[in-house]
């Protein structure tokens, strides 16, 4: 089944000509969301329906290196190309306010994260998936091998920059964060666990050091940050993600590929991955927005 990566409409027949017809219908209505998606992912130049169908077929083709590599490649193109996400650009030389914005919006993201992991556990009987998600929750909320949990490291990073923990805990997520969280919550709650798993764990590629192998022009942050004058708590938080997410995303995407093949759900998984990465793009913009708010406020 193919689902529109913009509006989540189920595409009749699940074919690329049908997906193309849907997009043509929406672009003729000048629908900004669908047009922005076409501009960013397919082409800025109008094509015929037949040509657009062919472009979609190429875009979704994972036959050469498999589904998990297709996800990696698409993620890299969206977030780490020569026109990266604006927050990724900011992270190349982050200010105190950039990192403070990161802390507050990411706190809300993490609270949803563990809920999504829990939904996946509850919905599957596959031991390898359950174990993977339990490990993930443990690391986020309890820590591992004497290392404080990620959420604690995050809050400490904020405090080291002058952002009181209480202020973060009492904050409300910004609009784009809220919308993204609602998407992930709804998918985890009401969708198939495999779609939720692909949607959530593909996002860990943001901190994956292997992105350079997939054509990334940028990495999440410049590793020279570890030699900078930033507080140790900042370095500790960034280092935890830097060390952890490499295996996290790789293990998860291998599981996604394995079960997508078993359940014949490759197209559906691709669709939800694409939708999730759109939401993630906007969520990262919220981090920048929050940082700018702190710059004015604090």
């Amino acid at each position, binding site marked *: 089944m193919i689902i529109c990566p913009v509006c989540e409409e189920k595409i009749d027949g699940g074919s690329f000509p049908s997906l193309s017809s849907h997009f043509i219908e929406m672009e003729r209505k000048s629908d900004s969301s669908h047009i922005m998606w*076409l501009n960013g992912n397919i082409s800025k130049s109008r094509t015929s329906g037949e040509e657009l169908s062919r472009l979609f077929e190429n875009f979704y083709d994972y036959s050469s290196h498999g589904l998990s590599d297709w996800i990696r490649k698409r993620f890299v193109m969206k977030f780490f190309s020569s*026109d990266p996400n604006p927050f990724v650009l900011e992270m190349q030389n982050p200010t105190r306010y950039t990192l403070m914005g990161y802390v507050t919006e990411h706190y809300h993201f993490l609270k949803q994260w563990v809920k999504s992991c829990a939904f996946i556990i509850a919905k599957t009987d596959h031991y390898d998936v359950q174990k993977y998600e339990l490990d993930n929750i443990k690391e986020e909320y309890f820590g591992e091998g004497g290392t404080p949990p990620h959420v604690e490291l995050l809050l400490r990073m904020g405090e080291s920059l002058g952002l009181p923990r209480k202020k973060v805990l009492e904050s409300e997520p910004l609009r784009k964060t809220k919308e993204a969280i609602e998407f992930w919550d709804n998918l985890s709650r009401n969708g198939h666990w495999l779609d939720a798993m692909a949607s959530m764990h593909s996002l860990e590629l943001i901190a994956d050091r292997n992105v350079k192998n997939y054509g990334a022009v940028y990495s999440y942050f410049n590793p020279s940050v570890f030699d900078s004058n930033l507080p140790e708590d900042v370095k500790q938080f960034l280092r935890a993600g830097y060390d952890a997410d490499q295996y996290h995303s790789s293990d998860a995407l291998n599981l996604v590929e394995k079960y997508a093949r078993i359940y014949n759900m490759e197209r559906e998984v691709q669709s939800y991955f694409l939708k999730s990465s759109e939401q993630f793009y906007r969520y990262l913009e919220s981090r920048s927005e929050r940082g700018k708010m702190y710059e004015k406020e604090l």
Partner: protein
Amino acid sequence: MKRNYEGCALCDATWGDYWREVEGENMFFCCNVCADAFENMIKKVKDVTGWEKVDSVHIEGNYSRGRNCVATSGEEKIEYFFRHEDGVITEFAVKNQGTRPVP
């Protein structure tokens, strides 16, 4: 108004079919978000310069990196950078302003 794009006045895409009158001219945009961004950007230029009309605008860049622009009115010109989100200008910085004609 002279522009460097043949497609959408803001992003040059040729999808969509959205038209809006800006500065007395019916212009093509791919969507309402680009139209909002373009219109708000022109308003900002006029606010900053005090110009009554904008004769030309040249845009380079994209949503991710922001856009570097040159606008002219008669013999005057302004070089600036801007970003938008959902059509609202979130960053606007004048880089240069003067009377030298744009090449």
